[in-house]
């Protein structure tokens, strides 16, 4: 286990290193300058600005400094918000995104599991058909369309829920729904197929033959065994939520890192873009690692200690 963890963490560090390197050099070959109205500044001031941000040093030295900074959790200084360290910018926003993402994940996966399971138990009935329609629609409607529709038709027209901003729990409901739609649909689809397979297997026949109640068969045998493969789609779902959060946070004016990412792209705020890229990669790596470990715990047939 320890060996496996060490190996995985090594790969995570390698990945982050590659991402940091690639983003750094991509940003360096970008045309243009980070400073607004640079042409209007006298050369002395330009040199001063360059010196302040360390842009007068050779590129390899900047790169090394950047890497050393990364090790200390220092992502540099934002160009957009003058003199604000990127790490502060991210640190003050990341928990909002994590809270929203986690809520969407939990709600989406739970509802998806229920819908998928019901669809499988009543396979072929109208319940199953409507569950399938819901899940195909959920996959096909982009989150940014859904978010706008929710905002206008539920937030604005009924005025039950706040339509934008970040306050108490009620502020998270609409954006959470917009984010949860896709995970919900994917989970429901996956769960249904898994469960249909499980329900047709021999040990379910046996459980029925033993005279277990329908509830007992489903709860103790079918449900548990169908849950195992669901863990594998948690990683892709996390990516989905990260992607969705960028637009959804933007539409609902939520001060999270997704919103910041979009704004930084608009304003060419390279240090922030780089910092957020690395943070996104780190989050994805951690989610993937956790799901792999969970997979081993839930299903003892998979031994993590044996390297693949």
């Amino acid at each position, binding site marked *: 286990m320890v060996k496996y963890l060490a190996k995985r963490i090594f790969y995570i560090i390698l990945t982050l290193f590659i991402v940091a390197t690639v983003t750094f050099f991509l940003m360096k*070959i970008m045309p243009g300058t980070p400073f607004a109205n640079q042409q209007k500044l006298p050369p002395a001031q330009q040199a001063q600005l360059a010196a302040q941000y360390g842009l007068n040093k050779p590129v390899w030295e900047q790169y090394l400094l950047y890497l050393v900074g990364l090790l200390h959790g220092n992502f540099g200084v934002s160009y957009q918000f003058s003199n604000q360290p990127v790490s502060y910018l991210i640190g003050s926003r990341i928990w909002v995104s994590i809270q929203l993402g986690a809520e969407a994940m939990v709600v989406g996966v739970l509802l998806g599991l229920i819908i998928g399971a019901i669809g499988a138990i009543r396979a072929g009935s109208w319940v199953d058909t409507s569950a399938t329609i819901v899940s195909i629609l959920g996959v*096909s409607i982009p989150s940014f369309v859904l978010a706008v529709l929710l905002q206008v038709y539920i937030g604005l027209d009924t005025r039950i829920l706040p339509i934008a901003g970040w306050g108490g729990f009620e502020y998270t409901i609409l954006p959470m729904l917009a984010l949860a739609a896709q995970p919900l649909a994917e989970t429901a689809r996956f769960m249904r*197929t898994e469960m249909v397979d499980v329900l047709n297997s021999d040990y379910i026949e046996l459980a029925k033959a033993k005279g277990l109640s329908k509830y007992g068969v489903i709860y103790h045998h079918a449900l548990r065994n169908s849950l195992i493969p669901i863990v594998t789609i948690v990683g892709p779902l996390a990516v989905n939520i990260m*992607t969705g959060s*960028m*637009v959804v946070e933007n539409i609902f004016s939520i001060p999270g890192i997704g919103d910041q990412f979009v704004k930084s792209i*608009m304003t060419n705020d390279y240090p922030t*873009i780089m910092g957020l890229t690395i943070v996104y990669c780190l989050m994805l790596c951690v989610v993937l690692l956790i799901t792999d470990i969970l997979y081993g715990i839930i299903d003892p047939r998979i031994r993590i200690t044996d390297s693949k």
Partner: protein
Amino acid sequence: MADNSKQFSADDFDLLNQNDRSKLDDEKIAAPSLTFLQDSWRRLRKNKAAMIALVLLVILFVLSFGSGLLPLSPYNYQYSNYTNLPPKIPGIDINGFNGTIMQGGVRVNAYVQNHVPSNVYFLLGTDGLGRDLFARILYGTRISLTIAVVASFFDLAFGVVYGIISGWIGGRTDTIMQRIIEILLSIPNLVVMILFLVVLKPGLLPIILAIALTSWINMARLVRAETLELKEQEFVLAARTLGESSFKIAFKHLLPNLSSIIIINLMFTIPGAIFFEAFLAWIGIGVPSPAASLGTLISDGQKNFQFLPYQMWYPALVLVIIMLAFNILGDGLRDAFDPRSRR
């Protein structure tokens, strides 16, 4: 049992002579034998939803790529007097299609208000600059479908080849190639695309490159896993024993057996790519104006959604229809190719 017994005598039987026997072929299979693709096609045709999706996609393809032949105003022409006109279809008098729109709680005829001559109409209305929305949606659909074609091309050209090489050669090559994929997988796709687009100038080309760069990974993994299984099978062994080159085995023996997996995965890559293009357009790094993609149209429409809802509804509807059609067709193909797995 005894009741059923009947005594047979030799007269009850006729001996077939040699001539008759040759006419009677008991090995013959009455039904025509179907190839794998014919069989799958037969199953797909039974799936109504998938067929509707297929027909819809064909219609969209023809309409969007043939839109130059239709008597339409160009997608970028601005009728500066006719801005924000709602949809109007002549001869139809249903609210929403008769040129009327709600303004401050009252339904008014925007065409009369703006003194539009009665022979001028816009099927899906006009946008804030007076451009025909119908023409723009068709143009946007064309971009989305172009992206679909390009993404599937790279999926095939790169993903499949990568997967086959990795699975076929195996050993150290496979390990290295898989490590590369693992690293690529732990970078969110979107981040790669955005970085790429930030560096290059916005336009269709960088979007295509970015999608090419990221879309093939899933295909490569699936193809590799399947190749690993296939290469242990007897027909591959037979081909090797007969001295076929690896290249020929890959083309003649592996590819046909991989085809169903490839086609199914393709059907799910495409909506992903279309979604990414719309998404990038939405956050403002898509095709620059006056060109339009469905994403930019939705993003433009969203700004006035409360007052001019048709400006977002129609492009969003078309986008959802495209995604739905590809998803449903993908599901249908999966069932058709592999009736056992109902995934």
